[in-house]
């Protein structure tokens, strides 16, 4: 499990809110920092890699615990 510099809790939020909030949060972080996103909408499993591919940020890992997903993204530019 990568060490996160910030955590974004999107539990209970449906697409596209987790992605929109991820974009806003990443914008506030420094290049190379890692954001942990918690979500329970299973769309996140494919949405996040797609968002990373479009924006050039690095998709690190996805962990699933029951219904909860933990996704790790590293901001590009480091």
């Amino acid at each position, binding site marked *: 499990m990568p060490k996160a510099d910030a955590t974004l809790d999107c539990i*209970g*939020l*449906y*697409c*596209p*809110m987790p*992605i*929109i909030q*991820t*974009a*806003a949060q990443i914008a506030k972080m420094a290049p190379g920092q890692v954001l942990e996103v918690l979500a329970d909408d299973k769309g996140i499993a494919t949405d996040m890699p*797609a*968002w990373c591919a*479009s*924006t*050039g940020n690095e998709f690190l890992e996805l962990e699933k615990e029951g219904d909860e997903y933990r996704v790790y993204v590293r901001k590009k530019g480091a």
Partner: protein
Amino acid sequence: MEEKKKLTIILFSGTMDRALAAFIIANTGAAMGMDVSIFFTFWGLNVLKRYDRPPTGKGWMRKLLNWMNRGSAGRLPLSRFNFAGMGPWMMNRLMREQRMASLPEMIAQAKALGVKLIACTTSCGLMGISEENVVPDVDLFAGAATYLGEATQASVNLFI
């Protein structure tokens, strides 16, 4: 610096469900770094109408149309199961339960994300919609050539 991908959406429909779909896609595109514009034409203009201004229009047909078709983002019908107005109320309840933004909130989100809102001048003229009767969020009044100019450069182009 790599070029931003463009997304163009024509919103022809004036129903709440279709408008929601358009804005969800637009906002997601903007969050993904795309250059997004929505071109509102025909019934799509209902999404941009102001409810706090009296309907206008040259001629009785336009006035009648605008009185019967007042629109505004918070008061749109559903394309199905409208139940004489109960439908949108029920849909808004479901949306609140899911913590989903309402249409007016999504419009504000779109503006914050840099989505361009473009109103079609021809439809405005046809249906007697003046500039004062649309919300100030509109970035531009333009025609089909402007839309097609954007669309030819766009990777994704949708008609909703």
